[in-house]
């Protein structure tokens, strides 16, 4: 463990990696606070920019965008009651009220502090939990891996909310898209319709940029403009009493966030709603909730940050992304030629530990950035969307072009942009599609190997105790959080009812950024 940490620190502390970590968290903060730009979109747009970097540097930056966005999303929630990130939705309830009472500074400060504490706690847990989990997964053969992938797909679908058939439909559609081109192990070109461009398959980055960046822009045009920003900002001071009141919520929020974040697909939005609901129940100042209670800011903000980190447990240890953004990050791994999964801890220790340690550094940077500078970031909100979205379009298309220097990529981005927009309009969840697309090739490989082991039969899936256990676990996880959410709400009669319902939805939403 100590060796790994030393390795991580020596990797993350190079000037280059520190610089890109800083760029990542800075961009993440900005992206997080821009309404209409979320961490998933941000990571998708910026993958092309990182292609010339070392994989570890690139991932440090992309991950920085992800957790940086968790900080940035808070600023808009508090100042204009407009969550920049889905995970910050619940922060608007008390955060905006605090701002109205002239306590915007305290609200922003406590969320930065809470986020930081939660990040450190969850990072320690992540470092402690992920390696043994990866070790365990290393013993898995194709049969168990197949079971794990089924688990991942099923869970993401379960959390995508709304109609189950729609989620399964999109997951299958993702798998189907992944079969375009020549598959590894086979020599046949599938669904290429004679196009040379399609021989190598439908490239991941272009699909992500299309779905998340262009699709979001088209969607935003249609839902209309936001209210402009009119917020006065006071200094970032926080009283000792406020800190004291927030300690409990921050610790509880971190715990809840980590536990929920670790479940593939559960996501940080769910965590923030749960943390708020629970805090409202246990707090001695129940009546203050919704009227500007600092606990109502501290708890969900800690929870969403803890969940963001916990998301990396299944992502790194199993190769199953925990949420929408980690699904895109996982796609980035494959773009750099890295095979996601438990083997990474063995084959790429420098990358894994460098990345994990960079989270620590990045969160320190974010705390330092956000405590005094949140008002400065808030100025970014004055950029009119009429300028912003054409720039997002430009960045999306030029980024896609630069991946393979091919106009075909640009056309793909446009096509998937329209698809993404339609999916948003029609309420079709994106996370299952993305996961199906990312897992497709691995899934097919595991299918082929499993069928080889079983001589054409998939019954071997039910002969291995581990794979049976994993499949049962999938069922349990699907039911578990719903029961937990119900439990959390039953004792909070008013106020968190909507949160209860919302927990069924976070994944789709997260991927929809």
């Amino acid at each position, binding site marked *: 463990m100590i060796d790994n940490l030393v390795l991580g620190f020596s990797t993350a502390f190079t000037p280059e990696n520190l610089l890109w970590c800083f760029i990542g968290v800075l961009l993440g903060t900005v992206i997080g606070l821009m*309404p209409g730009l979320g961490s998933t979109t941000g990571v998708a747009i910026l993958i092309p920019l990182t292609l*010339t970097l070392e994989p570890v540097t690139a991932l440090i930056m992309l991950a920085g965008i992800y957790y940086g966005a968790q900080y940035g999303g808070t600023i808009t929630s508090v100042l204009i*009651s*407009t969550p920049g*990130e889905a995970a910050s*939705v619940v922060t608007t*309830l008390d955060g*905006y009220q605090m701002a109205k009472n002239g306590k915007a500074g305290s609200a922003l400060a406590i969320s930065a502090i809470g986020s930081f504490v939660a990040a450190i706690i969850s990072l320690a847990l992540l470092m402690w939990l992920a390696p043994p989990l990866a070790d365990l997964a290393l013993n898995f053969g194709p049969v168990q891996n197949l079971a794990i992938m089924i688990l991942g797909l099923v869970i993401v679908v379960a959390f995508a909310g709304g*109609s189950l058939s*729609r989620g*399964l*439909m999109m*997951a*299958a559609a993702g*798998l*189907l898209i992944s*079969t375009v081109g020549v598959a590894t192990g086979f020599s046949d070109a*599938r*669904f290429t319709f004679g196009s040379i461009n399609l021989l190598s398959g439908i490239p991941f980055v272009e699909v992500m940029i299309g779905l998340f960046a262009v699709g979001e822009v*088209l969607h935003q*045009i*249609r*839902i*209309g*403009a*936001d*209210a402009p920003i*009119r*917020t006065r900002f006071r200094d970032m001071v926080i009283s000792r009493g406020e800190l004291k009141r927030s300690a409990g919520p921050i610790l509880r929020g971190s715990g809840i966030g980590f536990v929920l974040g670790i479940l593939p697909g559960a996501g940080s939005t769910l965590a923030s709603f749960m943390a708020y609901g629970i805090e409202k129940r246990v707090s001695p100042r129940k009546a203050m909730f*919704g*009227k500007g209670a600092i606990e109502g800011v501290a708890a969900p903000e800690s929870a969403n940050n803890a969940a963001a980190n916990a998301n990396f447990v299944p992502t790194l240890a199993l190769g199953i992304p925990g949420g929408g953004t980690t699904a895109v990050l996982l796609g980035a791994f494959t773009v750099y030629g890295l095979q996601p999964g438990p083997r990474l801890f063995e084959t790429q220790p420098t990358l894994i530990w460098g990345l994990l340690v960079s989270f620590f550094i990045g969160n320190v940077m974010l705390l330092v950035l956000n405590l005094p500078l949140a008002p400065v970031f808030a100025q970014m909100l004055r950029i*009119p969307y*009429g*300028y912003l979205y*054409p*720039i997002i379009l*430009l960045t999306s*298309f*030029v980024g896609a072009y630069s991946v393979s220097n091919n*106009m075909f990529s640009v*056309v793909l981005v446009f096509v998937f942009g329209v698809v993404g927009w*339609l999916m948003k*309009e*029609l*309420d*079709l969840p994106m996370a299952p599609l993305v996961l199906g697309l990312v897992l497709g090739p691995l899934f*097919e490989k595991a*299918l*082929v190997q499993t*069928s080889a082991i079983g001589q*054409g039969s998939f019954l071997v899936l039910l002969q291995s105790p581990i794979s049976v256990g994993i499949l049962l676990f999938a069922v349990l996880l699907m039911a578990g959080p719903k029961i937990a959410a119900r439990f959390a709400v039953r004792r909070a009669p008013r*106020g968190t009812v*909507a949160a209860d*319902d*919302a927990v*069924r*939805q976070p994944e*789709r*939403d997260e991927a929809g*950024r």
Partner: protein
Amino acid sequence: MTAAQRGGLAASVVLAVVGVAAVLGGLGYGVTVEGGEIGPGFLPTMAGGLVAVFAVLDAVGRLRNRRDAPSQAELITATTSRPEDGVALADPADPGAATTSTQSIHSPLDADAEEVDIFGRTQRQRNRMLAIVLGLVVATLVMVQVVGFLLAFVLLLFVIAVFVEHRRVLPSAVVAVAAGAVTYGIFVLLLRVPLPTGLLGLI
């Protein structure tokens, strides 16, 4: 049946057709190979079949008009608009009131045509804006072949800002040119991406 339901139904039908086509294609590639192991057609057939089955189930569900679990957007609306929390939904008269811009708090296809945003644009006008932007993007992609990538997109930025968003001409031009310059700096100079220069071959 609302427009949204019709759209959803159409999407399900299209996906069902795509799924069936994929199954047929997959069968053609060979589901199994010698020895009974799976072949290149297995996953396409399986995935296509699942798409078709679930699309049909979804279409049936929509036809029955079964109320789904509310979407996150609706829930957020419900959460943020509870009056006892003193947070109101976006109100043109109260800038800064709650609105969840990253969510579709309006269900656009169902939206009341009279509903206006802060610039007084109706849903109908916004629909037209979307159609115009889509058309402009297609036109830009064609223009790339002629004037080159950067010039075409700088022009797109300018045209959207001025003619679609009704921003003032000078600031729009500055923003468009600046965005083009930054893109040129990062992608052409720094990353050495050979952006297409088109027939004119300018930049």
